[in-house]
């Protein structure tokens, strides 16, 4: 009954519950005292997503893993990622912009894809000079989600893979539709001059 995944999931679940309680208490304090503690809440959410990503890594790297695919409004997905990251980047002096030209609902694993984009934006934010840009568009029947920055670009290609990139690559590959399989592309071809992270989903 209790597989390693169950044990890990239950631990992560409990920890995230605790973090949720902490975040809600901070929200109360903000409301009560009229103060702004957005960075503290961001730190809590970042810790929670780090936990989730670890679990997701274990989950998607297993044999026979399947993504949880539901129809997703791509513009909504972009809005959410921007909401998660914009304020924090601004505090570091970096602006985050987003464009989305995809109207059709798209089948994808909303939470894991959002987490991959969050992770890519965090990475881009660390290397960017002023600007990070998120873009969603269709290209020949593919949904292309990209994150670009105006930093120096990856020093080596491919760059060394941490948990985030490892999960992103595997997750992209788990998206299969009409005989086509998703993929991850990393390059220094950003129109902003820096690194480009690109998920291509069928």
């Amino acid at each position: 009954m209790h597989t390693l995944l169950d044990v890990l999931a239950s631990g992560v679940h409990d920890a995230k519950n605790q973090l949720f309680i902490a975040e809600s208490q901070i929200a109360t304090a903000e409301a009560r005292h009229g103060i702004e503690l957005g960075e503290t809440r961001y730190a809590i959410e970042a810790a929670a997503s780090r936990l989730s990503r670890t679990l997701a890594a274990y989950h998607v790297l297993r044999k026979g893993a399947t993504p949880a695919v539901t129809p997703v409004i791509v513009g909504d997905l972009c809005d959410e990622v921007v909401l998660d990251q914009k304020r924090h980047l601004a505090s570091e002096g970096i602006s985050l912009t987003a464009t989305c030209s995809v109207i059709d609902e798209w089948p994808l694993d909303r939470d894991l894809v959002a987490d991959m984009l969050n992770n890519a934006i965090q990475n881009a934010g660390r290397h960017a000079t002023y600007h990070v840009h998120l873009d969603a568009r269709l290209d020949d029947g593919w949904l292309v989600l990209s994150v670009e920055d105006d930093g120096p670009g990856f020093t080596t290609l491919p760059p060394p893979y941490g948990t985030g990139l490892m999960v992103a690559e595997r997750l992209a590959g788990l998206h299969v539709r009409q005989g086509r399989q998703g993929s991850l592309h990393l390059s220094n071809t950003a129109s902003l001059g820096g690194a480009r992270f690109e998920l291509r989903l069928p």
Partner: protein
Amino acid sequence: MSLYAQKRFLVIDDQPQARDALRTIAQTIGAFAVEFASNYQDALYRIRNNTPDVILCDYVLGDGRSGQQLLEELRRFNLLPDECIFMMVTGEQSYEQVVSAVELVPDDYIIKPFSPDKLVLRLDRIMAKKEFFKDYYREKRSQEYANALAILEQKQASETGRSYRFEILRQQAEVKLISGDAEGAETAYRAILDNYEFPWARAGVARSLHQQNKLTEARAEIERVVADTPQFFDAADLKANICMAQGEADEAQRVLDEVAKKTPRNYQRKRLLAEAATLNGDADTARSVLADVIANDTMPGAVTPADRLALARSQVDAKDLISAEKTLVGLKESEVQNLDLDAQVSYAALLAISSPGRGKPRFAGLRPALMSAELSAASRLDILRSALTLGDHELADHQAEALLEGEEAKKSFGAMRKHYALHGREMDFRNIQKQVALKRIKHDTPAG
């Protein structure tokens, strides 16, 4: 955030601290009032008596219950108006796997921890979607299916409709299925599958095929779903229904028994398990499962006279006539009078065996009707059982013939044969089978 200032929230969570956290978030976005429910029963009670505008429900409710089960129950009893928002709150990834597979989903789900801003973003979107589908929901609710489909077609052609293209297809399929257009539903579900292999759409194909009585094809489709998505329990129920229709009650019982162990408090599933066990001749299982249903399905109005009839049936099959009599006599005469014809017939048939003094005259009084009326397969089996026991061959054979000619012949076949065998009349049953087969050949051969 003022949008939520008029709204009443209900927070459902068995953990006090988590409940407080959810309340805080709801208050931060300006909720007008926030109520709590700490468990499943409490939540049902509050929703029944005063439906909130927004429900924030934790996926894990303790005591063997889940938020998903609550959602299913609310839909089953029609307690969730379209205007009410149901948001599942979850701390773990496993619920995503459930949502991506099943047919019955909440308006949305959100993963903890989340900020008040994120909740607002999600709630805003749900409201926009509900607004977009509002006129459609109204027609569907008043069962104006043609209008509902016409509205969906308009929406499909609109720019906003592209953002909901799968939802529109899904609604089209569902409306076609409930309005009896099983072929149209199958086409709609296949259009979804052409785009992506959603388990719920594959199950929809199986459901549509089942309704068209294409059992072998339906079985093949649902086997795929069950094998690929074991967390999709309703697919197992559908498989069991198809197995029963194919006359494989033993396989149906095996499948349901396995899933029921994982969902010990899903009493709809247990009812289905009892039906399979009864058809399979496993009266003991049927009896204990139904006793559990009647004792523990605490949702008001959930336990119906039909459940008591099913329990009495299993008690008769188990030869526990004293208990069967007690179960039947426990139904008030006024309740019996309010039953539909099929249930009244079953009541009389079962009472004739378990309490001959009271039951036989009642059953005899109905005999002329039983020889002519259109009845359900379950009622015909009950009549057949009693007629065989009372030695009324003509009445029993008439039911057997009607069952063998009917759409559910395969489903009732095993049970019929068993009853005839019990009374040493296997040969007679075989002769009835032959006659029905001959009649069918004559009927199928064009005259001249």
